């Protein structure tokens, strides 16, 4: 503290601080001008939301009707239960864990109820409640989630091809007893799939026999599409759609929660061939895709059983667009049909992420914008140029990096080859530790300057990463049998080891830090108020935080409103965020692999900002204890007053090629700012600029607080209003109040 400042009274300190801190900031009356500039903005509720952005109608009435029945929870509420444990039904004594689970899957295939709806064009239903609750039925095991299995590979091979691979591997020999047992368990899973297929076919035959007219024709077309698949490779688009769903639905029935992956890549060539041969029209193909999408909603209505985090979090992610292993753009007719279906049916249950690059087709960007504008944040965007670079710099071969999908949230991985686990931690806790605020006996520190404080924070950050690195030593071996998942994962057959037994080609333990924005904002507040403006000492600041800023509301407002914050394109705040980010990614990159486990770093909170609140005190940035802090790599709620372009600028100032675990930013845009043709162009430009500036992953959500508040008060009026935050999307009405409040509290970015 300088002598000159020492002689000033606290009162004058405040005054000097206000001028110095506030002087560089243009205080803007954001809302007022927004009101004036966007006529009608505030009066726009959901009632005329649809009028402003009307949904097109391309699908048949029957398909639309089936969609609304499924979305209403009709099928989800009818889920059944196989109460018995497999051990009470079959003698499992002496069986390996893998064989026990395979035996259960065989039992499930033979006994789970079948559900075939007369309007359905795609067959196969995962009808067990345990599965919808992230459990393997009959087994007392949690589901495998956070992965995307190799559906593309298995679709082309068919179960027959997989069976031959297993037999070939067994014949070749060299496997230990455990390996032989696993492969036999995998083969039992294939047999089980065959049993389920046989039952479904028989039921369809029966239904077709006992019906007539359109209904009979529908059953017959489903029968025709299902007859040869998934045992054999599909010979048509219709077979391919049916096969992919049957593969996917079976792992769901068996309680596994994989993502789906690059559906346009998997199905595009079949459609192209059939279109060229005149075997199908685009309208017919769209109907089939719609029925696939409706299938993805058949667990709707089971939300209550799964706690408060919503019914759409089944990790059934879809990736669209982007380049393939050879560098060619994948985007094809299927890409557009998927967007058509999502736009029309508002189904958010398959969260979609589109892979963008600087050469992405203009038509694709436009269609994404049109779908985004309906709200719900169903479509998010990767900048694949940055993601692929981050993955190759981390060590993945280029062709595999180019095939990236995600784990069902948005952390990227190589599908069908990766066992993925991530370990999250709250970066803000590390700052609290350095500040002695964690109540663990550490004396209140007295750092003489900001650099000493920052150094202590950095040391704590490093200790956290060191601790997380040790997680690799205990990385899954012999844990959690999952033979069906192993069947869909390369190199499990070759190695004779399971998904959780180091059988996968890649074993990944990603370190994910959350709270970068909060740490940056707090560090900057301390730097300015304590060390630069010397309005108060560090000890005084810490006392205020311990007492939750009690009696210091004015100082709190000063910290909140007159110190720059991350997310406003402010050079000082962004530089602080970058410094924290660079230290985290730089130190994490020192251990890329340990014990054969890959260690990519990412930035995320995935909704943990809720549970982390309990451990967070009031912040130097002016937050009270218990406030929602920033999600993922987004600005802290209420701190981003400069709008979405500023948020993107701040976020994109990070070097994301350093972040193989990636990190996402959420943009909320008011419907008024994206209405009309100008709105489409604005959204398109936002996406293009996000790619150009080197962003990584962005959710653009068109949503309006008034609508959310109304949905909270009158859930019956907005049953299908969906929101997407923190890597998942959910129907708003299915969230409990705490989650709803958090969604509402997040900043509105109004024109």
């Amino acid at each position: 503290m300088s002598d000159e400042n020492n002689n000033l009274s606290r009162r004058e300190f405040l005054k000097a601080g206000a001028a110095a801190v506030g002087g560089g900031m243009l205080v803007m009356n954001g809302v007022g001008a927004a009101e004036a500039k966007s006529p009608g903005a505030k009066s726009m509720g959901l009632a005329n939301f649809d009028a402003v952005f009307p949904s097109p109608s391309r699908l048949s009435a029957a398909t639309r009707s089936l969609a609304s029945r499924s979305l209403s929870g009709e099928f989800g509420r009818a889920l059944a239960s196989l109460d018995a444990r497999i051990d009470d039904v079959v003698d499992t004594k002496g069986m390996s864990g893998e064989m026990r689970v395979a035996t259960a899957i065989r039992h499930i295939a033979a006994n789970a109820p079948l559900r075939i709806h007369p309007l359905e064009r795609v067959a196969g239903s995962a009808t067990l409640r345990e599965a919808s609750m992230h459990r393997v039925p009959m087994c007392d095991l949690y589901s495998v989630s956070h992965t995307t299995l190799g559906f593309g590979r298995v679709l082309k091979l068919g179960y027959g091809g997989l069976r031959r691979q297993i037999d070939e591997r067994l014949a070749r020999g060299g496997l230990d007893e455990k390996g032989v047992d696993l492969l036999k368990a995998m083969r039992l899973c294939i047999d089980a799939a065959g049993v389920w297929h046989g039952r479904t076919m028989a039921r369809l035959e029966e239904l077709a026999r006992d019906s007539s007219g359109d209904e009979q024709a529908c059953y017959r077309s489903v029968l025709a599409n299902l007859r040869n698949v998934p045992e054999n490779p599909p010979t048509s688009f219709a077979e391919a759609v049916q096969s992919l769903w049957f593969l996917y639905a079976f792992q769901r029935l068996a309680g596994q929660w994989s993502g789906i992956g690059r559906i346009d890549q998997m199905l595009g060539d079949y459609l192209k061939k059939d279109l060229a041969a005149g075997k199908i029209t685009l309208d017919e193909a769209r109907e089939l895709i719609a029925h696939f999408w409706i299938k993805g909603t058949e667990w709707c209505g089971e939300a209550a059983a799964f706690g408060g985090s919503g019914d759409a979090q089944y990790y059934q992610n879809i990736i669209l667009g982007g380049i393939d292993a050879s560098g060619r753009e994948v985007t094809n007719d299927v890409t557009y049909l998927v967007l058509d279906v999502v736009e029309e049916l508002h189904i958010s249950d398959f969260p979609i992420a589109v892979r963008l690059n600087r050469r992405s087709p203009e038509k694709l960007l436009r269609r994404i914008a049109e779908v985004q504008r309906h709200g719900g944040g169903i479509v998010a965007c990767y900048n694949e140029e940055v993601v692929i670079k981050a993955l190759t710099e981390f060590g993945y071969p280029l062709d595999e990096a180019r095939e990236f999908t995600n784990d069902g949230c948005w952390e990227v991985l190589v599908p069908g080859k990766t066992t993925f686990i991530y370990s999250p931690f709250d970066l803000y806790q590390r700052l609290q530790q350095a500040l002695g605020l964690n109540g663990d006996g550490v004396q209140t520190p007295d750092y003489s300057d900001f650099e000493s404080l920052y150094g202590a924070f950095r040391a704590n950050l490093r200790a956290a990463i060191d601790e997380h690195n040790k997680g690799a030593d205990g990385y899954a071996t012999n844990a959690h049998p999952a033979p069906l998942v192993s069947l869909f994962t390369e190199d499990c057959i070759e190695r004779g080891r399971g998904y959780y037994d180091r059988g996968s080609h890649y074993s990944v333990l990603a370190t994910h830090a959350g709270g970068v924005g909060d740490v940056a904002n707090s560090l900057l507040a301390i730097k300015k108020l304590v060390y630069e403006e010397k309005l108060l000492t560090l000890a005084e600041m810490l006392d205020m935080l311990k007492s939750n800023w009690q009696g210091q509301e004015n100082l709190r407002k000063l910290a909140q409103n007159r110190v720059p914050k991350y997310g406003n394109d402010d050079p000082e705040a962004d530089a602080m965020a970058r410094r924290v980010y660079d230290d985290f990614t730089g130190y994490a990159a020192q251990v890329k692999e340990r014990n054969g486990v890959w260690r990519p770093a990412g930035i995320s909170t995935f909704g943990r900002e809720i549970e982390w609140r309990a451990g967070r005190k009031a912040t130097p940035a002016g937050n009270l204890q218990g406030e929602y802090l920033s999600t993922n790599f987004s600005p802290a709620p209420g701190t981003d007053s400069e709008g979405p372009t500023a948020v993107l600028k701040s976020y994109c100032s990070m070097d994301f090629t350093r972040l193989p675990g990636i990190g996402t930013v959420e943009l909320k845009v008011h419907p008024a700012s994206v209405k009309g043709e100008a709105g489409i162009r604005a959204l398109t430009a936002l996406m293009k600029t996000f790619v150009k500036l080197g962003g990584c992953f962005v959710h653009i959500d068109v949503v309006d607080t008034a609508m959310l508040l109304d949905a909270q008060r009158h859930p019956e009026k907005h049953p299908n209003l969906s929101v997407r935050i923190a890597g998942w999307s959910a129907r708003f009405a299915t969230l409990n109040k705490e989650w709803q409040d958090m969604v509402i509290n997040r900043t509105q970015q109004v024109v």
Partner: protein
Amino acid sequence: MASGLVSDIQRFCTHDGPGIRTTVFLKGCPLDCFWCHNPESKSFAPGLLYTAHLCIACGYCVECCPEHAHSIFNDEHHFDRTRCRECLACADECYTGALEQVGREMTAAQVVAVAEKDRAFYEESGGGLTLSGGEPAAQPEFALEICSLAKAAGISVCIETCGFGPAERFLSLAPHVDLFLWDLKDTDEARHLASTGAVLAPILENLRRVDRAGGTTVLRCVLIPDVNLNQQHLDGVAAVFRSLANCGGIELLAYHPLGASKLERLGIECTRPLPAACAPDELVSAANYLRGLVGESGVIER
């Protein structure tokens, strides 16, 4: 370097001219529209907005106010506007945003520096800077310098104007402006005078001169129930449009009475009852009627 008074700068504006734009609101307007959307930008002096529900009654404003306009009784803040001379000392001390200064002196270079920040977005969207107000041309040197600096920096420039003022102002701006968003408040002489306090003729004359000088324009018309939301006005707008050589079309905007929320914060009493909001279907039928007069392409929907 010219400087002037800015009441607000907003980024990611998507309906103030083409593309993603940064809209700069200059403070002060020669018109006095009773229904003004932005009443805080009417005055040419910095003003004080008071938002009572943000106040935490900390009392700092009491200490710093030389006029004793602020007081605290029973932990409640009272603000006597009659004593306030808008010195704005209190706004500096108020960290809650309850007392807020509207209108800050900036140089043209500072304004353009803010606009620079979103250049990447302009490039992808065909956007740029939009000068609005208040009436930007009412700070002629400041406006001219902003426009010429932006233009020289390769940033597209739109200017939203009521068109009132000496013709030279608009003619000198024209070479630096890509598009004039010309706010045509009314086409009826008497009503224009009654509701804006200004005569219509010079506004139309300025418009025609800018047009003849090659300036590209869009007519922006706020439709206000019980004021100008009638067939006669729409006929008048169509006639003006047809008289111009370089007018890109007519953009209709729906009036809303939200400006009233700011009147209270400004401590201004609403002397004349505000019209009701223009309903979406009224806007649609007006646009359809106008299309019948000037053709499909004559009505711009952004």
